[in-house]
């Protein structure tokens, strides 16, 4: 599996990220790092505990990372969730969280598959 195929599998824009970061090495480094970033766990946990401000920040971080890495799909859903959490929890937030979870699973799954197929 190539990085490009990995991006395809997660519904992300490889051309965009390559245009900006300009280095395949850099992209791979950060894509792999994405799995270690604790923001997703933080988001899920703080949503469960009703820590909305914390959840907002976590969601905002995920969104930023996605933007930077060109993860279009997860980027969109985390963007929607961020807005639904800005300045307090709106009714749509729980539904949007589910979308984020689904997109995250897909994204993380694709990265893991990439990792495995390249023996990393």
């Amino acid at each position, binding site marked *: 599996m190539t990085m490009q195929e990995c991006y395809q599998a997660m519904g992300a824009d490889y051309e965009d990220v390559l245009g*900006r*970061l300009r280095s395949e090495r850099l992209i791979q480094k950060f894509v792999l790092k994405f799995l270690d970033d604790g923001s997703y766990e933080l988001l899920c946990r703080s949503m469960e505990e009703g820590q909305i401000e914390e959840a907002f920040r976590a969601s905002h971080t995920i969104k930023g990372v996605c933007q930077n890495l060109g993860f279009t799909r997860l980027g969109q859903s985390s963007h929607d969730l961020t807005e639904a959490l800005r300045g307090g929890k709106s009714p749509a937030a729980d539904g949007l969280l589910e979308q984020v979870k689904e997109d995250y699973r897909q994204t993380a799954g694709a990265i893991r598959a990439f990792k495995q197929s390249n023996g990393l």
Partner: protein
Amino acid sequence: MNRSILADMLEEEYEILEAEDGEEGVNILREHWKDIALVLLDVVMPRMDGFGVLEAMNREGWTEDVPVIMISAESGSAQVARAYDLGVSDFIARPFDAVIVRRRVMNTLLLYAKQKRLMSMVEEQIRETERHSSLMIEILSHIVEFRNGESGLHILHVRTLTEFLLRALVHKTNRYKLSDQDISRISVGSALHDIGKIVIDEKILNKPGKLTAEEFTVMKTHAMKGAEMLDALEEQQRDDPLVRTAYEICRWHHERYDGRGYPDGLAGDDIPIAAQVVALADVYDALTSPRVYKEPIPHEKAVQMILEGKCGAFNPLLLQCLTENAGSIRQELAGGASTDAARRESQNIVKQSIQAATGSLSASDRTLRLLDYERMKHGFFSAMTQEIQFEYTVSPSMLVISAWGAERLGLDEFIPAPADDEKLRAVLGDDGWPEMSAHMRRTTPEHPDIHYESQIVCGGEPRWHRIMLRTIWTADSPPRFDGALGKAVDIHDTHEKLAALENRASRDAMTGLLNRAAAKERIKLRMEERPEGNYALAIFDLDFLKTANDRYGHQFGDQVLKEVARRLVHSVRRSDIACRAGGDEFMLFLEYNTDLGKTVDRIFHSLCGPFGEYNISVTMGVARAEVTGRDYERLFRAADTALYAAKRSGKGKYFFYDRSMRDTLSALSDIDGETEEQGK
């Protein structure tokens, strides 16, 4: 992770300090702001957001020196405007583009560097001029005016004219490569052109009328003499550019462009430009000023005489400068002595415009140097005084301890949220911080200082410190409590010494036991502090001590008393209060749990017994607080009564007080009063 993407883009070219959140960022800035070239600032962060950081930076005045680029994903225009207001230089949008990020960072850095350099150049120049003028003019005016009343003004004129001619010359040609600093240096140096005259005989110097040939020869030596004077300076000063310039001026200001001048007969541009200009200025002012031997010549006539070569030969370029600017020159000189004031005025204007353009001059390198110096001084002295110094700010709640202090206490120099800091709590004790906060809150802006003593743990050992605080208040009305400066001085040794003195005052010199007054205080205190305890007071005195004294002498009697004290100390616990009440009377206050009778019996028997050939025997009365109530006086009287009862029944025994003894007489007459009878 967003942070590390940015770091990755920049780490090849720059050294990067990363901060987890706003508060950490502010802490890093506090420590390193002098070395930080640029801040990349995110908006959404835990603990303190980007705007919080900007506000802190503004408050501390860092924004003037450290440019900030803000990272914005979706900031609305209101946010952008607010960020600009708070001093943000530029924005980087997410998602990051490596090329744009690098470019923005570099542009901002270059812009700041250029501004800083320009500012320091302008300032350097202002400073240079100020330093030179104040120093040189003062020295010269004094020396020369002392010798010759007229020359004081002459020097000012020559200087003004020199500067004027040089500026006109620079305007005309680039041949002499004169910077503003050169012009300033030559103008200042021009004041020295006649210092050699100091060695010329006053009769020649101020002679009305023409000089003889011999006199003129002497007069001419002033050029070389002046140069020699400067050359005789210490090496360090001799090599100063100003002194080099002044040397040229002194030596060659009587050279002529055609080579017929003195002392060296240099011609054309072999004569340094500084000397050429001063020569012309000198001649012009000599002509237009009154002298002892002549009336002043009007401007037009003077210029004409110079052009006709009647007063020397000059660089044609300089002559052009003179004629072309004749009008302005006259005006300039009419200003006369006020030139200096005008100069200062113009400097002030430069300063003010810089201030207006940049917010304030505090950003300048000079100020930074001063600050650095202050910092160094502060660091040095705080290390020397061995004091723990600290600063506290309310918002963000932060305690900053001096390097020496932090090391001494084993704490970090920066302690955010000191109220919740475990390490700090271990050092100050559980009540330490709340106590300090309470003290601080009790101050007012009018009375901001407070002192108190407290124990602080240093190297695992609690030591007494005197804590001195000055609280800081905002300029708002009403003022808000903003923080505090403070120091803690180790007074442990003094404290210990005092305690030792106090100890000595409370002891009986012969036996080392407490004296009665001290014992009484402690007994009262003990019963107050722990009212739930079971207490008893025993009073005993020695039987037949008088007989022992009579038989073996008073020294032996003292030995007996010491022995009894020793036995007493050995048979009671440390927490019990043993005392020599006076004469041969002793007192013991003890706390008991179960069987007081057994304890008293044990103590009684350990006191009695042979001491050499002599047999020590005591009689004792014991009273329990349970019976008398927890009152020292009543307890004492009861024990005293029991002692009396025991004595009456035949000495060498102990009695417990009970209510049946209430009406019995006291054994010791007035033991607790003022008139004590010694040696019963």
